[in-house]
């Protein structure tokens, strides 16, 4: 969900906006957002989605918060990818009497897509490992049932590990459970990263300029 939004923002920043003070200010803002600790996003999510918008502690609130968390990463990755598209492609298309919008849609975006996707997937894998945002917005420490989509509380893997390892009186006994959860988490992150790598190398092979 953050992906289209981030890509649109990046297109605006690199292709349309006049490169002046305002754009630079936005870019600085976006970059510093990327550096903000995730706890802050979690608290923001709690304040905005859970309390203010009255979502309650639900998956939706967690998902939206994570979306905001990875937005700067996606914008950054997309901007880089768009800037990497040779200016000669844009010129070639525009010189044929193709509009700017169609040029972006047909030439610039497809060329930038591998970069956008890999950058974004790495952002997503970061989100998978984040605890704080979900802790505040969506997670409970333990539920026995599988969550119903969207409006239910869930267990977040990292948070689950954290609680298992630190609280309770039977830390030793829960070790296998902890290891199991960590394994799932690591496998998940690795899997997502792997997809990113595969996409990049697959699409990179098609494009040489």
């Amino acid at each position, binding site marked *: 969900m953050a992906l289209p939004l981030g890509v649109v923002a990046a297109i605006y920043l690199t292709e349309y906006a006049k490169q002046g003070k305002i754009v630079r200010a936005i870019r600085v803002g976006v970059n510093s957002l990327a550096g903000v600790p995730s706890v802050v996003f979690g608290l923001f999510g709690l304040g905005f989605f859970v309390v203010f918008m009255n979502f309650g502690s639900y998956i939706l609130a967690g998902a939206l918060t994570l979306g905001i968390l990875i937005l700067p990463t996606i914008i950054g990755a997309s901007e880089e990818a768009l800037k990497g598209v040779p200016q000669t*492609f844009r010129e070639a298309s*525009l*010189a*044929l*009497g193709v509009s700017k919008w*169609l040029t972006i849609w047909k030439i610039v975006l497809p060329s930038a897509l591998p970069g956008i996707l890999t950058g974004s997937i790495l952002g997503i894998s970061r989100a998978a490992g984040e605890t704080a945002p979900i802790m505040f917005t969506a997670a409970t420490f333990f539920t026995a049932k599988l969550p119903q989509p969207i409006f239910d509380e869930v267990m977040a893997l990292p948070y689950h590990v954290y609680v298992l390892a630190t609280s309770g009186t039977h830390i030793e006994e829960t070790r296998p459970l902890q290891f199991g959860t960590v394994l799932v988490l690591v496998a998940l992150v690795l899997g997502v990263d792997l997809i990113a790598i595969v996409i990049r190398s697959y699409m990179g092979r*098609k494009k*040489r300029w």
Partner: protein
Amino acid sequence: MENAPSDTEIIKTKNIDFYYGTFKALTDITMTFEKNKVTALIGPSGCGKSTLLRLLNRMNDLIDGARVEGEVLFEGMNIYDPEVDPVEIRRRIGMVFQKPNPFPKSIFNNITYGPRLTSTANKSALEALAEQSLKQAVLWEEAKDILGRSAMILSGGQQQRLCIARALAMKPDVLLMDEPTSALDPISTAKIEELIDELKKTYTIIIVTHNMQQAARISDKTGFFYIGKLIEYNATEKIFTNPDVKQTEDYITGRFG
């Protein structure tokens, strides 16, 4: 009507001044380009030839801070009128760049890219158009069996002819060429020169070149530029045998530049 074009002229610039920010790249350029003729623009590096060329189809619009004063009349219409759509202008005034710049697509998709997005031509019409354009650009024999393959596998000279074919597929009236052969070997260059000679039957061609022999060989009229000014504009024969201005002679005979 003051702006009515005569039969022979197609583009006319009137007192053009051009600025990159505060830097004035062209000063008071007034010149007329004739229909179905090849006009060559020559002059030392940095004198503003590319700037003038890109100004004729509003490609300079893309540069931040670029500013034009004066008028460019295309068939009597000022293309810098606020009501004119630059996209429409570029459809009618095509451009070939110094470095071949095919899209990373198949040969077929390169040629049909423009028409597909700007017209309603169906598949068979596009196929016919591709064949016609490739034949015009003398690339058909080499490319007809590999239309589905990436344009990137072509040689530089072939890529440049593909770019010409791609521009021709839009059926423009004018073709602007900015040093189209400077990145090519002599054989490819000769092919493109032959091609230009053939194309002028149908199109008006304005070409920037650093190669004096090339200008002399292929053009009907030649304009000599120096530091943003049009020094002399005359029939090519006259420019190369008996120029009116001393500076022109010095440049052509290689005494400076």
